[in-house]
């Protein structure tokens, strides 16, 4: 077990003009479960592979337990990795797969058997120990990949989207199992995913990356409540936060005929920044659906989930723009059956909770 520090770590792929990972700074504590999340091409996998020694550290440094890992080959880093497609050795049995690392370390056959049996017990794999991976289901293979990692008792677990090949139900199940297992073992874990739900539910802290750059590194609730910029705001949360650039009026922002009031200090801050528009963010649960008061919208789609429902609507006001400059599509959450129909005109009101404000150009939080 060990703490991990990324110190301005960078990586560039041959022939690319942009850094895949750009001066990444992360301070991961001993025993922490950290999730790296971001859209594809954000450098999250590369950052993990740099830690594992599968990708060169072209600038800066990565330390594990205070030791600089630049130039140290993977096999000497004492890291176990779970791959997206598991990468089990097809010619070896489940038991041999799990015991391979111990064999490489020269652990005696007896000791190896004991440890593999223990790990198999934890992961419910005991009856499959003599089978080859080809004869297992996807979920079982995933568990073997986990077993191969935990049997070694390494300093660090690296997990690269280990759940993406499972079906939805199994994914949710395995998600909680992995998180529980990590707490039990207390091994420092770096977990890569593109799924923000996994990030929110599993990580002690979550690092959001975009284009190789770290956007925010904080606890899941902090990311949700106080996103540092419009990208994080839009990425964390499902359905995503409603983000739109709106003109500033007197006492608030102008959406259609309605005014969304803002606090006096906020208004002075906006005025002193010399802005006449601002990007606002409202979570779906912050939008109430009414007929009458609020700002007008047309319903495009309704998703009924049973316990709740989501109403997708668009605004008609041409002065209100989405982040891409196009018309704004909004989503509102309703705890009951949707009080609207497709094609209907509704009014949306802002419910409790703060309005997130971002700079219309830079996207930074105001």
């Amino acid at each position, binding site marked *: 077990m060990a703490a991990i520090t990324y110190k301005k770590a960078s990586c560039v792929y041959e022939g690319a003009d942009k850094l895949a990972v750009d001066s990444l700074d992360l301070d991961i504590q001993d025993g922490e479960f950290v999730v790296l999340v971001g859209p594809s091409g954000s450098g999250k996998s590369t950052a993990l592979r740099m830690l594992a020694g599968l990708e060169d550290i072209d600038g800066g440094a990565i330390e594990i337990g205070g030791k600089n890992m630049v130039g140290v080959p*993977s096999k000497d880093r004492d890291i176990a*990795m779970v791959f997206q*497609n598991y990468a*089990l*050795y*097809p010619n070896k049995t489940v038991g041999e797969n799990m015991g*391979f*690392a111990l064999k*490489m370390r020269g652990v005696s056959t007896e000791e190896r058997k004991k440890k593999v049996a223990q790990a198999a017990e934890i992961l419910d794999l005991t009856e499959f120990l003599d089978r080859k991976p080809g004869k297992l289901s996807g979920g079982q293979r995933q568990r073997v990949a986990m077993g191969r990692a935990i049997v070694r008792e390494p300093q660090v677990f690296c997990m690269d989207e280990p759940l993406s090949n499972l079906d939805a139900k199994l994914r949710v199940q395995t998600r909680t199992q992995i998180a529980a297992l990590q707490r039990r073992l207390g091994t420092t874990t770096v977990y890569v995913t593109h799924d923000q739900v996994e990030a929110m539910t599993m990580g002690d802290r979550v690092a959001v990356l975009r284009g190789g750059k770290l956007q925010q590194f904080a606890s899941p609730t902090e990311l949700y409540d106080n996103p540092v910029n419009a990208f994080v705001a839009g990425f964390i949360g499902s359905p995503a936060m409603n983000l739109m650039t709106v003109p500033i009026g007197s006492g608030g922002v102008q959406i259609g005929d309605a005014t969304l009031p803002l606090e006096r200090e906020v208004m002075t801050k906006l005025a002193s920044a010399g802005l006449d528009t601002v990007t606002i963010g409202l979570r779906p649960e912050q939008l109430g659906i009414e007929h009458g008061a609020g700002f007008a919208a047309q319903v495009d789609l309704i998703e009924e989930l049973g316990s709740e429902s989501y109403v997708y609507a668009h605004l008609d006001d041409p002065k209100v723009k989405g982040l891409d400059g196009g018309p704004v599509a909004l989503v509102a959450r309703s705890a009951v059956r949707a009080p609207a129909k497709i094609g209907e005109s509704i009014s949306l009101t802002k419910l409790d909770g703060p309005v997130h404000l971002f700079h219309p150009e830079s996207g930074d939080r105001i």
Partner: protein
Amino acid sequence: MSTPVMHKKKKFGTGTIWTVLAWILGLGFFFPVLWMVLTGFKQEADAYSDPPKLFFTPTLDQYRAVLSSGIGTALMNSAFATIVSTILVLLLGIPAAFALSLRPVKKTKDVLFFFISTKMLPVVAVIVPLYVIVGDIGLLDNIWALIVLYTAMNLPIAVWMMRSFFLEVPSELLEAASMDGASLWTSVREVILPLVSPGIAATALICTIFSWNEFFFAVNLTAVQAQTIPVALVGFITGEGLYWARLSAAATLAALPVVLAGWIAQNKLVRGLSFGAIK
């Protein structure tokens, strides 16, 4: 309701046609081989009879004659040249293919093209210079000359074949092995080689067949001592005429080892390559 039935009927019809066609083709290819084997067990008189005789009293006379004619040396020469050149090809070709597939560099494509380009020149075009070179280094009628040539002849094919097998090995497997603490050599031995063993078997079989059947180099560069089996077979076509039955017996003997090699390799060939490694 009638449409699916008609559809089914039609499908059944085309299936039968394909089956019949496949049988005709298969028998067409196999018949000369069968006839050769049969003729090998006939007396010369039966072999020449017109119309051809399908039923006859089988005899081992031709095999006795062939074996006493000194074909053993040729068989040994062929076996030696084939085995040694195939081993050399595998020893040289597997590492080359591994490097070219798992650690590709800028010039990988050029290197691969260079390999295959050596097969584009007709052998006839180089036989004179080759003859002179082999003569100069004193290896005419020496089996080692054939071994070197067979190795060079099969190496490009082996590299291309093995490369395609290595390409199917997921690169994560090597990464997983290195994370598990294995050195490159251990990963190759423990993980990669078992996976590509069907490929190695296929490559070895192809090289064996090509070397065993090679005629042109052998007929030009060997005489008595280093004579291989294809050249020896030609020896049965004598000035006094063709001895069909004896030639057939000799040809059957010559074909047997390759059939045997194919049969041994077959078990390996049908096994899936990397099933279960990923996903």
